[in-house]
């Protein structure tokens, strides 16, 4: 894509690190508002023609998530444990490339609800956690959710528990799959309220993009039709078309530089050949995801910021939240062919709110889908009592793969201070940066919530008339694709990293905007909220810039 380029030694208005769900939105919004923007992306700039249906590559070999040899990560349960390299799957799962994880995500696109922002006030504190209200409300964010609906492109229809919306969905729901029909049948039999799934995948052409062709390769894949509303397909082309934005792919940020007054002056990064560059900027925005943003702050330490940049609170990297997940399976007499089309077409939110009568904190949603492709199902997805090799195994595979679907639960994770992202003291990545070290252990209420959703999933499947039902038992979470909470938003600089405008409390011209800003986890589908926050942040940053508050 032809684009404007900027010299590194002249300060641009904004440098953004990351081009994913948040970075792509910020680049497009700020460039559209007339600012000069350089966006750094560590991965390559792919196009839809680069994407394939190679399950082994995308699921097992890191086609989009990166070669684990080059980007090792370590994992441990507790701070006193020695972290071990967890190569595949990495504990902090995200895609590398322009568009970031919005390229490979499943595209479930639930808005948060009012309760997600003020739950602490509604329920009270929870011992051993940093459970807190957000400094913003659903009402403040609603116009930006609507902006996401229309600018990003969301398919859906109103549901019985939806929060208020100021404008209808731009395109209707995607066609229901057999999983959706059975899910709906079971849920209704139980008196629950199934609804079409809101998805960031187009059911009809919108904004010059194609509708979904139902190829079935969404989760962990890039869309070859640009029907999935990644920022690669939506925001990036529009950012570049402004003539004010340069996307610099294969550029790995090393640190944010600051001057004697404590202001950010730019970002030092490596190009694909490993050559170091320094891009000067008037304002720095980190939108690198909840793991990479925290790492970059740690790597930007200085005598003035000895614990890492913007970390006077000591909370950078802490309160990591993954969301809990559960999976139960049902097998039927006739083919469902779940390998076709988008993962999810029906959801329920009957158990969204935390209910004190359950005796623990937590809530979530459920959907009908099939996460497992041919390899995953064949290797790991069969019922636990079924043979795993031999003639009967083969006959079962031939019968069951197309006759199975999954009820997936998506649940809250409490913010626990000891769940975090830090720098590994020994392991380095290919550029010599300290590896990401993840420490994570679910809060006991999170595990109880997962068990609750696991059990409801079994009930639902029983109500569908499945021939056989099985599940993965609830276990402690060992990795996350939702990287939330590591630079939380708040009004008090002692208990948060950024303010309600995503501005670092400690550095007036540094903004952090991605999953790291989350105060609580929501119910397991964070991307739409990340993008609504990014649209809102762009408006706030524009106001501050125009008021002269960001300095020269």
């Amino acid at each position: 894509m032809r684009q404007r380029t900027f010299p590194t030694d002249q300060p641009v208005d904004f440098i953004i690190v990351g081009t994913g769900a948040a970075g792509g939105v910020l680049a497009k919004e700020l460039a559209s508002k007339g600012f000069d923007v350089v966006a750094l992306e560590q991965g390559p700039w792919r196009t839809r023609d680069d994407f394939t249906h190679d399950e082994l590559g995308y699921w097992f070999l890191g086609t989009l998530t990166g070669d684990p040899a080059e980007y090792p990560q370590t994992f441990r349960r507790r701070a006193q444990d020695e972290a071990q390299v967890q190569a595949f799957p990495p504990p902090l799962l995200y895609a590398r490339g322009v568009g970031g994880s919005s390229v490979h995500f499943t595209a479930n696109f639930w808005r948060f609800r009012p309760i997600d922002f003020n739950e602490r006030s509604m329920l009270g504190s929870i011992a051993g956690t940093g459970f807190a209200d957000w400094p913003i409300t659903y009402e403040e964010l609603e116009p930006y959710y609507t902006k996401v609906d229309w600018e990003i492109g969301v398919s859906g229809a109103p549901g019985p528990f939806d929060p208020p919306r100021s404008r209808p969905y731009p395109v209707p729901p995607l066609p229901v799959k057999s999983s959706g029909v059975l899910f709906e049948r079971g849920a209704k039999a139980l008196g629950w309220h199934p609804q079409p799934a809101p998805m960031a995948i187009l059911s009809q052409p919108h904004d010059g993009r194609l509708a979904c062709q139902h190829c079935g390769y969404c989760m962990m894949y890039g869309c070859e039709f640009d029907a999935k509303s990644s920022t690669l397909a939506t925001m990036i082309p529009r950012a570049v078309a402004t003539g004010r934005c340069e996307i610099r792919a294969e550029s790995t940020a090393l640190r944010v530089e600051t001057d004697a007054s404590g202001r950010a002056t730019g970002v030092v990064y490596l190009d694909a050949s490993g050559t170091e560059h320094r891009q000067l900027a008037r304002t720095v925005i980190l939108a690198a995801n909840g793991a990479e943003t925290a790492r970059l702050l740690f790597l930007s330490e200085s005598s003035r910021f000895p614990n890492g940049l913007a970390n006077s609170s000591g909370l950078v990297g802490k309160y990591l939240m993954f969301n809990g997940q559960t999976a139960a399976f049902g097998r039927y007499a006739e083919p469902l062919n779940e390998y076709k089309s988008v993962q999810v077409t029906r959801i329920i939110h009957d158990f969204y709110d935390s209910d004190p009568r359950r005796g623990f904190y937590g809530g979530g949603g459920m959907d009908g889908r099939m996460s497992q492709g041919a390899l995953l199902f064949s290797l790991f997805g069969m019922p636990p009592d079924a043979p795993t090799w031999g003639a009967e195994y083969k006959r079962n595979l031939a019968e069951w793969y197309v006759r199975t679907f999954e009820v997936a639960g998506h649940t809250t994770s409490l913010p626990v201070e000891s769940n975090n992202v830090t720098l590994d003291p020994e392991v380095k990545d290919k550029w010599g940066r300290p590896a990401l070290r993840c420490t994570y252990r679910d809060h006991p209420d999170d595990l109880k919530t997962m068990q609750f959703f696991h059990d409801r999933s079994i009930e639902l499947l029983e109500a569908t008339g499945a021939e056989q039902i099985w599940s993965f038992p609830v276990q402690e979470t060992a990795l996350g694709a939702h990287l939330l909470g590591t630079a939380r938003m708040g009004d008090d600089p002692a208990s948060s990293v950024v303010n309600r405008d995503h501005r670092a409390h400690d550095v007036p011209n540094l903004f952090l905007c991605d999953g790291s800003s989350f105060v609580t986890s929501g119910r397991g589908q964070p991307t739409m909220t990340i993008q609504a926050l990014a649209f809102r942040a762009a408006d706030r940053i524009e106001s501050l810039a125009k008021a002269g508050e960001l300095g020269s």
Partner: protein
Amino acid sequence: MDPAPSRRQFLTESASLAGVSWIALNAGALASLAACAREAAEQNAPLGALSEPESRTLAAFARQILPSGDGLPGADEAGAIHFIDQAVQGPFAGMRQLIADGVRDLDERAARANPPAPSFADLTSDQQVEIMRDIEQDPFFFNARMLSIMGVLADPSYGGNRDGVGFALLGVQHVSAYQPPFGHYDAEAANGGAA
């Protein structure tokens, strides 16, 4: 811990990225698999294609995982052994030593079970099954089973799944786009059936 791990070492540890739900729920098994593959890599397994005796033994192993018959393709029809041969030179190179050791173990067990047998491949099917049941919990079995199944179902560009027979085995159409109805139950609902 090697601060500059080789590409080969880590790609071989890539034995098991799975659905995010699956991953989250099975990370324990994966961690042990990764540790095992890492150990294999650190022994500097030589790169290269399988030897002829190795490939005979592994092909027999793969044939037991997914046999021919029932009118459905298996490891032989898919050419799974070619996938394995390429995998241990490429993305799963760190498993090379583990596979070589496991093949040697299979052949030694075969020789003990049936002294004149020079290879696991020369045993009767029942004898092969008996030996495989004995080693089902071994890392070799886990990984060799995985490679055998991948050899049938992974994209043909990796050397197996000849002519897409793996997709046929699963009953998957395997074309690049579909239109509704997708399956029996949504077709039924669209026709006014039970919904």
